[in-house]
């Protein structure tokens, strides 16, 4: 007699190997972006096109700097997750894996570069 429930014996044996983690991650980042995007548009928007010194002064302030850094961090995570789903839909085989890795690296790289730049301006 086996002391395992039916559910326990079945867990992990499906083809998906994971459940709703990806869906949930996108849901969390989308709700976060719902707050961040308007804040970013109306802080970054007016300052785009301003002279160099004005830009440096503005992004030395905590609020716009934190909003911009968070928007890049959450936005690029959301992009990486979403672009991965698109690639899974349209590309198959080795190219699919290669492109997912490239998109993931590009997303984290761009987020890191942007956040570094903002920190350097702000501090």
């Amino acid at each position, binding site marked *: 007699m086996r002391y395992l429930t039916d559910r326990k014996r079945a867990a992990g044996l499906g083809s998906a190997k994971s459940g709703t983690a990806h869906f949930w991650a996108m849901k969390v980042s989308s709700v976060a972006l719902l707050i961040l995007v308007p804040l970013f548009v109306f802080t970054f928007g007016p300052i785009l096109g301003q002279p*160099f010194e004005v*830009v440096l002064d503005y992004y030395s302030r905590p609020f716009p700097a934190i909003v911009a850094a968070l928007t890049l961090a959450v936005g690029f995570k959301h992009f990486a997750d979403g672009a991965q789903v698109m690639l899974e839909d349209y590309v198959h085989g080795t190219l699919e894996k290669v492109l997912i890795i490239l998109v993931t690296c590009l997303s984290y790289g761009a987020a890191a570069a*942007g956040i570094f730049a903002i920190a*350097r*301006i702000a501090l």
Partner: protein
Amino acid sequence: MADVNRGNRPLSPHLSIYRPQLTSITSILTRITGNALLLAALLIVWWFLAAATSPEAFAVANGVITSMLGDLVMALSVWGLWYHTLAGVRHLIWDNAVGLDIPTATKLGWAVVIGSVVLTLLTLVLVA
């Protein structure tokens, strides 16, 4: 025989068979806007990096982003951003298994299309 009629069997309808509908167009636009926003996002990262580097680097990046072409890309991206945001709200609503009937889905689709244009004009007026 299983393969007597091979190649001549009816296929299930696919994208090219259907007449474009508001629901299908708004759906694919969500994906297109979301992925196209990469361009503006990378331009903005470049702009921040240039500002953190030197006045000369900033002049180049700022010049490109505020050029005619840059303005066009950023204006279209503002629309893409608001469209994708509103379409995302629609998905958050749908995630609760609410509003999936055709009349409501159509209304939500128009709300996304019209709302995105209104928010874009509002943004361009307030920001530009």
